[in-house]
Structure formats: structure tokens, C-alpha cells
């Protein structure tokens, strides 16, 4: 199925938390500041419902998204008040993909874990949590994965300040 087909199907099964879709578009010739948007289309989901939404995507026979390929967050801008959390799903039977995006406030960012739906989420969420400071509620093993346990700050945030030393090792 293509993106429109998947989006239609998600509406038909009233997937929990589905709140919209965003598609690439051409630049508006009237508006000189508008450059359009390139790349992929994605569906937008409410943060609280994401685990139920993923379960619906996995269990529906026509969608059958059996692989969680990727889970990551993006800090679009230091001034922006929201993170984007992106999920990439893939179906090995129907051979289609879906990009999902969740907007979550930076202040005390919390989102339910997807570990119960896809175990693949476990390590991705650990990485996402340490890099952005997002709490995945209900995660079974919320330790750091790539960074040392005592690392201060969340490096992929745009407001991250590079440390000048770590355990007496100069980083300058």
C-alpha cells in the first residue's frame, strides 16, 4: 500500500491517537519565503496513545507492520518547545513502510514505551532517552546505552553545552 492507502486504512480501523498526516508539497509560487517541503509523508499521533497505535498497526491484517525499524527523536531548534519522536515501521509481508511522528513538549518530555509492542524499541528508547532526556514511561531497563552512566546532559539537544572536562580528562 502507498501512504494514502495506509492513511485511509488507519482511519477505517480508527487507530487510537491518529491526529493527522503531513505530506511533502511544492513551494507556493505566491509566497517567496515558502520553499515547500521535501521528503517523506508521515502520520501524526498523540503522544499518550502511541503504544496502542503501534499495536493497531502491527495487528491489523491489511497493515501488518511487523518490524519496528527505527525509533528516534529530533530536536528541531533550541527555540522550539517540542521534540519530534519518529517511528519507522515496515511490513515484511506487504512490503510497505510508514513514518509516524509524535510531538512532545520538551519540558518534562514523557511518552509511553513501545517495548511491549516491539522489543526492538528497547534499545532505541534507551538511546533516545540518554540523548534527548525523554522519559519512556514503563521502560523495563532505563539505563544509558552508549554514554557512561554518569554523563551529564543530553548531547543531541540543541541547547547542549559541551563539557570541558570529564573525570579529570580535559575535553578542550
Amino acid at each position, binding site marked *: 500500500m502507498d501512504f494514502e492507502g495506509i492513511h485511509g486504512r488507519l482511519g477505517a480501523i480508527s487507530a487510537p491517537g491518529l491526529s493527522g498526516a503531513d505530506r511533502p508539497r511544492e513551494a507556493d509560487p505566491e509566497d517567496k519565503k515558502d520553499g515547500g517541503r521535501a521528503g517523506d509523508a508521515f502520520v501524526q499521533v498523540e503522544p499518550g496513545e502511541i503504544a496502542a497505535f503501534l499495536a493497531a498497526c502491527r495487528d491489523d491484517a491489511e497493515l501488518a507492520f511487523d518490524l519496528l*525499524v527505527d525509533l*528516534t527523536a529530533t530536536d528541531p531548534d533550541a527555540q522550539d518547545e517540542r521534540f519530534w519522536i519518529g517511528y519507522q515501521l515496515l511490513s*515484511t509481508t506487504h512490503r510497505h513502510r510508514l513514518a509516524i511522528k509524535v510531538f512532545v513538549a520538551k519540558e518534562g518530555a514523557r511518552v509511553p514505551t513501545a517495548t511491549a509492542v516491539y*522489543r526492538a524499541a528497547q534499545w532505541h528508547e534507551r538511546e533516545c532517552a540518554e540523548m534527548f532526556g525523554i522519559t519512556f514511561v514503563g521502560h523495563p531497563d532505563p539505563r544509558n546505552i552508549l554514554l557512561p552512566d554518569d554523563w551529564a546532559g543530553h548531547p*543531541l539537544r540543541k541547547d547542549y553545552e559541551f563539557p570541558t572536562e570529564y573525570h579529570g580528562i580535559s575535553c578542550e
Partner: protein
Amino acid sequence: MMIESQGKTTEPQAAGVVLSEKARTLPSGEREFMMDVRTADLEVNMGPQHPATHGVMRILIRTDGELITGAQPHLGYLHRCAEKIGENVEWLQYLPYTDRYDYLAAMNNNLGYSMAVEAMLGEEIPRRAQMLRTICAELNRIGSHLIAFGTYGLDLGAITPFLYAFREREWMMALFEKICGARLTYSYLRIGGVFNDTPPGWLGEVEHFCDVFEEKHKEYVDLLMMNHIFVKRTADIGVIPAEMALDFGLTGPMIRGSGIDFDLRRDTPYMLYGELADAGAFDVILGSGAKGALGDCWDRFYVRVMEMIESVKIIRWCLGSIEPGPVIAPLPKVLKVPAGEAYVGIENPRGELGHFVVSDGGKVARRVRVRGPSFCNLAVLEAIMPGTLLADAVAIVGSTDVVIGETDR
């Protein structure tokens, strides 16, 4: 595994040797002591500097005697902030960093990143460039699988196949050296095409490599893959059922070894692969449980070994239909990518290499996310290692064929 003394074990199990209270007096008048060995679970660190972890990775293994009761991979020893660097350098400048995550398949990494940026540029890639990209990506896949083949034998105590595999890999690297000057970190596939055209006679040399390689490949099959000792060490070990493979998000040879018929090159066609699949130029190799249970270490190894021949077939198809022409699309030196975001996943030797790039329309990316296949493939160790014997730990870790540069990025 407590040593039973007269039907009852001694408590408590303190550190070191404990003298049993049940010492009895022998007829000679001497006191006989029962010595109890400490039998608590033992935690063993495999790595971070262990030759069989294929890089700087540590697996904390909990053992009960010879039995593994828990395994916990610890990553991060090779973390080089690749994603943060991506937000601080220009689009083209990031390309050499992609070489460094899966350093055994740098051509494929270049391809993944270039395609993600091209997905937003909407630029037409010249056909000759696509041909050269396919040839290089598949040659690199052969080289990467040769390492998987050789080092897996080395892990299990077979030294000779490793040397054979490196002989062919050396040739492959010499071919790459001729085309781009580098032996490991190529940066040859650029955004928009490839860096330069082939030197004279290069395509003929690739064909010669294919001819020789097909003959040598038969040796590999006989020497290691069908070797009785090797089969005994790998069959029925580290079985990953299909449901588990999907749950953990495994891709590439890991998922095909479990019998799931899925290859991104055929099923979500990109570049020339759709055309190749329609022409029947290559097959997707699947594990079948030929030597033991479906999804065991041998099946994964089988998929990698046989995929090399499929790569040769793809290269031959390209060599047969490549024509002169431009090799790179005309793009400005300082690239500005239209605002937007794109995720592109390609079939790397180890599975799906995904790049998620976000642009705000400027010269520098807002976000470059790398989904390394090794990272996801490694997570399954936690699930398959408990219950196996310590001697099989190396066989299981080797069968995942991880590259630590990619798990840690």
C-alpha cells in the same frame, strides 16, 4: 550445582572454601573434612578487549557452571558522536563520517547517506553512476561477507579459511584503491553520483575478479561451511525463531537466516535493484534449517556465504549493460537541501541501514539519524544466549556479525 554431602548441602555458601560441619571421625581417629566448592553464579566479562567480540564490546555473561543464565551487552566504547557531528558539518562534509560506522562496508554506507539526501533533492542520478554504485556496493558486500566468513571460522578455531578470505578481500580492496585511492574508507559514492569515472580497464578487472571468485567460492563452501566440525559447532546453536526475529527488529542475513523471505533490494526496490529483480538477476537466499533447527547459527552463516554468489551475479549483470555517460549529477559545491525530512533504508551487508535526515533548507543538517543494523541485531543476544553453553557464546556472537563501529556510531 552444589556438591551434595550426605544428602544435604551446606549453608551458607560463603566465599572461598568452606569446611563442612559434617566432618566425621574416621576409624583411624583422624577427622575427615568435606570441602565445599563455592558454587554461586559467576559473572564473566567477555570483552571489551576480546578477539571474538569483533571490536570493543563487552558482554556481561552470568554463568552457572558451563551454562549461561544471562547475557547483557554493554556498548559505547566506540561512540564517536556521529549523529551530533552530522548537525555541525555541511551535507557533503558529512560523507567521510559515514565511512566510519560500518567500516567493512563503507561503500554501502556512502550509498545510504547519499540516497537519503537525494530523496530530498529530487535530483536525477545518471545511469552510469547508478551502475557504478551497484557494482561498488555489491563488491563491498562480498568483501564484508568475506570478513564474516573468515572471522567466524577464526572464532571457532579454523584459521586457514580466514587467510583464504583475506586473499580475495585484498584483491577487492586493490580494485577499490584503483577507483578511488582508498582501501577502507572510500567516500567514492557522492551525493548525486560517484566521485569519478573508472580508470581504463577497471571493469575488465572486476570481471576477472568475478571469474576467479566464483571458483574460490566453491572452496569456501567445502572448506568451512560443509566442514563436519564446523557444522557440529553451529547447527542447532543460537536458534532465533521467526517471531523473535521480527520482534527484535532484525534485518538482513539475520532475518533471512530465520526463514523470513525479505530483502530490501527486491522488496522495496531502490536504484537499479527493481530492474535487477525483474530481470531475475539475483535470488534471495534463505535459511532452511538444513543442518539443524531453522534460524540457527549455521543458517545465518549459510545465507552470508551464498549471498556472495548473488552479488557476483548482480555485478555481472551490471558489467553486461553499463554504458558510457556522465557519472555525477551537476550539483553545487556548497549544497543546500530543501526543507523537509526523509528516511531511506537500504540493504547493507548486515541488514537495513537507515538514514533519517532533517533539513531546514540550509547548508547544514538539522538532524542526521543513523539506524545501524548491527545495533538492532546485537540486542537479540540478550534473548538467545541464556540457556546455552559457555563454549557456544563465541559461536552465537560471531553469527550476529556485528561491527562495533556501527553499533556505537
